[in-house]
């Protein structure tokens, strides 16, 4: 038995350690540890509820717009103003979140994941210098290659041609994700941590100037996503097609749904959404509705006291750094007692099965081109493919939302902060499904709990000893060289972990 510790896992958000027990080349056991705790939930207690949109965004610099919206919807719910959000406010929230998705997905494939498949040394061997990557080639020749190298040795298969194209897209994608952030800032003031999403709607009424600036960027991004991102992922996926069989996690997927298409429909599940919610379990391909009361956070192996165990409406996050059996700052959310994977693979599969036309078409085409079936999406390449497909679907929906904006019409409803109340805000976030639960007493926050996408995916074992989704995806993996655990790194990164989110 060989024990391997990978710490830090780089090219993700935040602080993650992975420990593996490898026997005869196979991963027998895996532990995922979040190694940073900040305590934002306890920080929210006692504060003005309206400050939650500003503070919860600081959970994550990569997906702040998702926290802003979950938090704003939790307040809309608490203040009883969900039905008063003007159409412009709803649309601008969708557009900001959409921009955040594009930035995050593009960042993940090119700047966080590509170096798992693309070996920079393959670029040095190219005789004909591609004009797009000439700078990069000459940099690699004249320097020690940092920060792109050193890299794990192992099986890199793309070869010169595809590597050059992917490296060129890596550089161009730097501008694409930046444009996506500019789109968020058109209605959000700035990014990261926008100043446009508030309870009641958004702060800036759309006008001709914001609409034209938004539309032109969206068109450029659309071109990149359709012509480069989707084909690029399919090319990599075909070259590494065995990774459609690797990194299979838990059989359960969950998503609350996000992007309101119409005004609030009386309950979360009755509201019409661009990305639908649901639960898919072991039993196969039937989708059930999510019952929020069945979510619990388990803390058997997390460094928290007993007050942190239970449904997010009733828990308190108390750190217990010396706890016996603890190995992570991530809690372990479970739905009906079981670990569930969240993220684009979960969301795309659920939407495909629920007959979301757009997803059915786009995912169908992508699966055909990649030569895979629906049950292969629960894998390393399945996650990458679904992320790209989701990006394309969101771009397409955003075109419709920009068109519906009504220049000069209001984007925000007025409200009074009540003395008491409670509410929940649910959103789709780039890495999966996101929930904020708030309680107010004396017009101040008396409890605030977040269950965040990577909390689900990177969760440690529960009280039954059942490993979390990422841990299960690692167990059973063949590792060619334990000193260069490239396969494990590829599996972990396919989840796009965000540890600042997971722990918060």
């Amino acid at each position, binding site marked *: 038995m060989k024990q391997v510790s990978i710490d830090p896992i780089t090219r993700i958000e935040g602080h993650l350690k992975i420990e593996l027990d490898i026997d005869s080349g196979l991963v027998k056991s895996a532990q995922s540890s979040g190694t*940073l*705790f900040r305590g934002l939930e306890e920080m929210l207690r006692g504060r003005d509820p309206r400050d939650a949109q500003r503070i919860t965004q600081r959970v994550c610099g990569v997906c702040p717009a998702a926290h802003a919206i979950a938090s704003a919807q939790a307040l809309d719910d608490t203040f009883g103003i969900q039905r008063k959000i003007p159409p412009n406010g709803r649309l601008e929230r969708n557009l900001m979140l959409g921009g955040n998705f594009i930035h995050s997905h593009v960042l993940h494939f090119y700047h966080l994941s590509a170096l798992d498949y693309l070996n920079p040394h393959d670029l040095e061997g190219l005789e004909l210098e591609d004009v797009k990557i000439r700078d990069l080639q000459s940099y690699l020749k004249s320097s020690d290659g940092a920060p792109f190298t050193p890299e794990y040795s192992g099986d890199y298969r793309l070869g010169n041609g595809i590597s050059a194209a992917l490296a060129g897209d890596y550089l161009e994608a730097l501008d694409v994700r930046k444009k996506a952030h500019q789109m968020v800032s058109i209605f959000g*003031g*700035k990014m990261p941590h926008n100043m446009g999403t508030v309870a009641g709607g958004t702060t800036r009424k759309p006008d001709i100037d914001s609409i034209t600036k938004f539309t032109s960027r969206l068109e450029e991004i659309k071109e990149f996503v359709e012509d480069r991102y989707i084909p690029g992922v399919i090319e990599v996926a075909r070259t590494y097609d065995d990774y459609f069989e690797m990194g299979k996690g838990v059989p359960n997927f969950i998503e609350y749904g996000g992007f309101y298409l119409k005004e609030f429909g009386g309950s979360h599940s009755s509201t019409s959404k661009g990305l639908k919610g649901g639960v898919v379990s072991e039993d196969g391909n039937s989708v059930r509705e999510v019952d929020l009361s069945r979510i619990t956070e388990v803390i058997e192996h997390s460094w928290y006291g007993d007050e942190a165990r239970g449904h997010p409406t009733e828990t308190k996050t108390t750190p217990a750094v010396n706890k016996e059996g603890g190995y992570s700052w991530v809690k372990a959310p479970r739905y009906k007692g079981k670990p569930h994977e969240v993220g684009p693979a979960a969301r795309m599969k659920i939407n495909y099965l629920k007959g979301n036309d757009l997803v059915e078409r786009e995912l169908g085409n992508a699966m055909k081109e990649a030569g895979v079936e629906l049950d292969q999406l629960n894998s390393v390449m399945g996650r990458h493919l679904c992320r790209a497909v989701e990006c394309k679907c969101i771009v397409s929906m955003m075109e419709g939302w920009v068109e519906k904006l009504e220049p000069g019409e209001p984007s925000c409803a007025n409200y009074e902060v009540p003395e008491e109340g409670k509410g929940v805000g649910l959103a789709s976030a780039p890495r999966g499904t996101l929930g904020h639960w708030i309680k107010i007493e004396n017009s101040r926050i008396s409890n605030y709990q977040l269950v965040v996408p990577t909390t689900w995916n990177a969760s440690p074992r529960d009280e039954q000893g059942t490993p979390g989704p990422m841990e299960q995806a690692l167990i059973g993996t063949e590792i060619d060289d334990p000193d260069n655990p490239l396969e494990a790194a590829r599996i972990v990164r396919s989840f796009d972990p965000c540890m600042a989110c997971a722990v918060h």
Partner: protein
Amino acid sequence: MTKKSEVHPVVWLQGAACTGCTISLMNSPYPKLKNLLLDELVPGESLGLKFMATLMGGTGELALEVLERTKSGKNFVLVVDGAVPTGEEGRFCTVGEETFADQVVRLAQASIVVVNIGTCSSYGGISSGHPNLTDCISVSEQLNQRGISTPTVNVPGCPPEPSWFVDTLARIIISGIPSDDELDSVGRLKEVYGTLVHDSCPRRGDFTTGKYARNIGDEGCLVELGCKGPYTNSPCPDRGWHEGLNWPIKNNHPCIGCTEPGFPDLMSPFYEKFGMEEAEEMYRRLK
């Protein structure tokens, strides 16, 4: 352009942070991130980004070896985002087998200068917000407590707009570590942070004539909605964000004072106007 010029090695460490500072730097219009990685920053000088967990190729041990190699060269600039959790002997944040509280001290000791990007590393920021369960402190405070005298420069903001950081770094590379005269009382370059938001706010005229916004989305000065522009130094009004595309007050949202040592506790509730006493206290701090 090839890096034939002098290369200044850079190590980027992350403590109690959200990665917002990294992402903000990636938004830099010019120099773009590509320029920062591959090209010269100013004629004859370029950066050599050796260690940055968010973007680097190496993982685990392989990454930490780069860190130690660069450290032994003793000629690098240390950039830190995130505050330093000091509670429970630093165990709220660990990297490899080391606490971040120890790691940052070790690296700072070997570096030429420490540049704190963001309000967390500069002053504690969000990570140190009440009740501060992890006892987060700023990098400078941690270095003081451990008796490390490496000079530090702060680039606060939650996150800072990328040019604030790039300008500070370029300034250090061109003409060395800033003198005390060039920094304000809280360690920021005066050249970048020299102006009060309120003084260069385009809505200053509304303040003067008494045209105040009463609800979110209204035109007019935002002080009645809790704007902290009168107590906040930042180049937001002059430079804007994303190549001047927008910025919070232009977006009808009050400033929340994210570049100041008082963020978030002294600047909140964000949507309430300071009383006379709080206002006077803030002005005292600004001196």
